[in-house]
């Protein structure tokens, strides 16, 4: 924990020093306001690089009575809190010559916490080559993020991408290796734009192995239409070993300040794994229907409301989820009485399904953010609520974001989980979390 403090303090000093330097430069510039019409960026270079470095201090407040805490730690953890310090570097670069573009984004993370001490992770988030022979056509090969769907917090039709982090839906995702194309045709009339995006994705032990256990090529596509001031997408994914997916989404401004969007997907022959309170597992096969309906509204006071209702047809019912938690409860009692971990271990085999975010069926999401309150420019307070409609548990996240200097963002986020016994948010490992992050772009 001490290491974490030292790392954070050192970083804060560096940022403060640099911030002061930038601030002084800014004031000097003001004396001679740069209105000489020279814009350095006019001179284009064939390559460009940008990066950001972020330091983050996270404090988790454990809910020692929560069943997921007991599942993970049994009675072997005495601390009431856990601290983690992250130092995260992302570098993004591109090179373009004529109709060929190379693009890459790389991430390195160094973190410290009491359990693992210092650890590091490195990953290539995206790296692809793009051929753009005309304005209408682009062909991309390599590791790329294909973010489909119109949902802000949830994405039922994002068939070719990893799930978003519900805590930070805007966060960068890691892509998959694929071959894809983009053909655009724009014309007058009612149907103003048509775009077709076919995707071919290999799955084998070397690449994209997270997608499925068997070697195959999965393929799919997206058809985009812009008509009557409305964005519409039709999407599909076809696979021999995975479930076939079909989706549709739309987005439209009803008024200048009100946008409506929707996203729906059918997942054919979806296998859902269920466990009972004795640890017996079973598999149910069905076609799942997932959908969301969302609104984005900007008030006259510059308050933005993002609201979404999400139905997760692949999720668990309140009864199924409660049964899973009862298994953990029985497993913990078994451990206390007999030192046997068999039931707990059985529950852990299903944790990938039951412990994932939005594991149940019906959710409401609301984010309210206020731009520049109290005449403080570049300051945005916000609050986000995720409400599980089935068990009435919720996650509430107030957040303060401030950008006091160009390229510097300070973010303070706190999260509280609320719910009764044997509810999704009521039984999470933490009952509160505080995250302070400082990010600098260069």
């Amino acid at each position, binding site marked *: 924990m001490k290491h974490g403090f030292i790392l954070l303090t050192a970083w804060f000093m560096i940022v403060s020093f640099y911030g002061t330097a930038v*601030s002084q430069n*800014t004031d000097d*510039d*003001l004396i001679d*306001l*740069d*209105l000489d*019409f*020279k*814009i350095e*960026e*006019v001179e*284009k270079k064939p390559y*460009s690089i*940008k*990066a*950001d470095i972020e330091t983050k201090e996270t404090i988790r407040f454990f809910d020692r009575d929560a069943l997921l805490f007991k599942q993970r730690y049994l009675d072997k953890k005495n601390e009431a809190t856990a601290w983690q310090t992250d130092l995260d570097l992302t570098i993004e670069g591109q090179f*373009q010559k004529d109709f060929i*573009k190379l693009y890459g984004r790389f991430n390195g993370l160094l973190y410290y916490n009491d359990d693992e001490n210092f650890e590091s992770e490195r990953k290539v988030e995206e790296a692809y080559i793009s051929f753009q022979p005309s*304005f*209408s056509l682009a062909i991309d090969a390599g590791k790329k*993020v294909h*973010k489909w*769907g119109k949902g*802000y917090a949830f994405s039922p039709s994002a068939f070719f991408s990893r799930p978003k982090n519900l805590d930070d839906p*805007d*966060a*960068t995702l890691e892509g998959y290796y694929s071959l894809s194309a*983009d053909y*655009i045709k*724009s*014309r007058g009339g009612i149907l*103003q*734009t048509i*775009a077709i995006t076919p995707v071919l994705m290999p799955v084998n032990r070397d690449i994209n192995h997270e997608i499925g256990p068997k070697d195959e090529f999965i393929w799919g596509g997206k058809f*985009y239409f*812009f008509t009557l*001031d409305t*964005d519409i997408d039709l999407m599909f994914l076809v696979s021999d070993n995975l479930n076939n997916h079909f989706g549709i989404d739309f*987005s*439209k*401004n009803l*008024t*200048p*300040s009100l*946008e409506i*969007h929707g996203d729906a997907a059918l997942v054919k022959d979806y296998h859902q794994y269920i466990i009972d309170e004795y640890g017996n597992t079973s598999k149910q096969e069905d076609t799942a229907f997932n959908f969301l309906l969302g609104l984005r509204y*900007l008030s006259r006071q510059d308050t*933005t409301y993002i609201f979404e209702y999400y139905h997760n047809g692949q999720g668990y019912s309140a009864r199924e989820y409660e049964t899973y938690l009862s298994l953990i409860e029985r497993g913990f009692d078994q451990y206390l009485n007999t030192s046997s971990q068999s039931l707990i271990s059985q529950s852990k085999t299903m944790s990938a399904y039951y412990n994932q975010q939005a594991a149940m069926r019906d959710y409401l999401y609301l984010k309210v953010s206020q*731009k*520049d309150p109290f*005449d403080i*420019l*570049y300051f945005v307070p916000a609050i986000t609520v995720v409400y599980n409609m089935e068990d009435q548990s919720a996650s509430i996240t107030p957040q303060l974001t401030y*950008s006091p200097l*160009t*390229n510097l*963002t300070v973010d303070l986020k706190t999260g509280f989980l609320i719910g009764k016994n044997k509810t999704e948010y009521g039984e999470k490992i933490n009952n509160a979390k505080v995250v302070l992050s400082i990010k600098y*772009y*260069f």
Partner: protein
Amino acid sequence: MHWDMFNLQDKKGMKMKKILIIIFLGLFSTLSAFALDGNEILRQVDRNLNPDSFEMYRKLINIEPDGTKKEFVMFSVKKGKDKIASVFLSPASEKGRSTLRIGDNMWLYIPNVGKPIRITSLQSVTGGVFNNSDIMRVDYSAEYNCEKIETIDTGYALYLKAKLKTVAYETVTMFIDSEKLLPYKIECYAASGMLIKNLYFKNIKDFGQGVIRPALIETDSPLYKDYKSYIVFANVKKRDLADEIFTLNYMHKIDGLR
């Protein structure tokens, strides 16, 4: 002779009549034109501000009351009356963000988010006094009808009313230099009649290819007291642009047009 004299007088009279009719018609048509041509003047102002299809660089500068300055540099392409696409080149925190506007539809593409999202005209992708409508400005004649025109000492005052309720400012008063047919001040009002902001057009510059327009727009707003914002224009150039550039699928590739 008498006949000739009469004829001559008659001819003179006819000529006079013709002249009077021409003067009257001329005056009448001028007055009619004055009454009718506010929209034509507005269209001419649009063409003088920028060509039908062009590219440009802009630097947006926000200055806070304490002197803190934030700058954004954008590359933009515009085609026709109501299509404009832009990409942020700096600062690093905004680099790669792109915006697209087709008529009343506006989208923002953030590289991290990886897909375009719809935004509204009154939001501001940069913060400060400029909103999205100012940054993604389409032709004034695409959004407004001229309801009244007045001749003033320095030129014309055009009183514009939004064609649709989706437009950021309900009414706009545009003050025009009658010689250059370029605006030097624009007042933007909300539906309530409240003044939202003033735009001052300054530093008329010859960008070449016949493009002569103000290279600086200064803004202040009673809503943002003591805040100032500027847009500096550079490299405004005519350019033929494909329609496919102004689509969601092209948003992440706009930088490649430079």
